[in-house]
């Protein structure tokens, strides 16, 4: 639902990261890290990026998305696990206090310029 806003931010970040001394830069690849809990629909993001990168150095950019698992740690027993379904209860001690270790990432890790 907010993929267009996310896409716009990504374009802004990518453009700002391109060194000024490169003439007519073209970004071939954008390497992204997106957590499974980040509420970003990959297809929608690809579509939005395609639309808003038109006539920019990112036109036709290939999005390489690394999907990050949702990892949690139980504050009571220290058990760490990958949350597969929607439930967050500790599978070890069944207790309540759960800390999220990963899964909310929404980052550009790097971009690759075309030669």
């Amino acid at each position, binding site marked *: *639902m907010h993929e267009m806003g996310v896409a716009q931010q990504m374009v802004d970040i990518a453009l700002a990261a391109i060194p000024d001394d490169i003439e007519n830069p073209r970004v071939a690849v954008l390497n992204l890290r997106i957590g499974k809990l980040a509420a970003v629909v990959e297809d929608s993001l690809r579509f939005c990026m395609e639309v808003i990168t038109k006539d920019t150095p990112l036109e036709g950019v290939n999005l390489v998305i690394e999907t990050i698992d949702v990892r949690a740690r139980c504050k009571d027993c220290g058990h760490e696990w990958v949350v597969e379904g*929607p*439930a967050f209860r500790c599978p070890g001690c069944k207790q309540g206090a759960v800390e999220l270790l990963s899964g909310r990432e929404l980052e*550009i890790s790097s*971009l*690759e310029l075309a*030669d």
Partner: protein
Amino acid sequence: MEIKVQKRVLEANETMAEKNRKLFAEKKVFVLNMMSSPGSGKTETLCKTLLRIMPEIRTGVIVGDICTTNDADRLKETGAVAVQINTDQFGGDCHLAAHLIERTATQMDLDHLDLLIVENIGNLVCPAEFDIGEDARTVVLSVTEGEDKPLKYPLMFRLADSAILNKIDLLPYLDYNAKEAVDNMAEIHPGMPVFSLSAKTEEGFEPWIEWLTSKVNSKI
């Protein structure tokens, strides 16, 4: 040629949210971000809440909506300061972001507020993603929605500090398993307080008001 970026896409929003949080701390205003799907009864819950806590707790409300000022108009009738943000001016956003809260809150008289409630746009997905600088989040679910909503929208329930199960006055007329809904919330967020209540009849309101009041008092 590869250029390392390592930048979080929501960083601009998070920076603004931190700035908001600092301002609210200075002004000793407790900020509650209220979220839900459309039609869960957030505004009615808020109206009844305001009538119970004011004037002891001086409260202001920022109401987010894509269009109309209907909700702010209803809230103003309680005597609270209510400001409407319509996101259609900003491309019809489906959530309130930190910069909108900053713009609106700084125009409010924060020196004379103890509590600022942000009634977010009705949507169980996007608002959960955007930190606005709040102290706590409450998600409202109603018994006319599916029992499995917490499982379908885990981030919203995972990041909430409390939940309200609203419209319990309708339970006799519905084929709804309220225990299952509450159990599902506990699966997503074990230990999160859930207040089953009816904004219409005000049944079950006391524990919710106590929770809110104690949170506000902890910051004054």
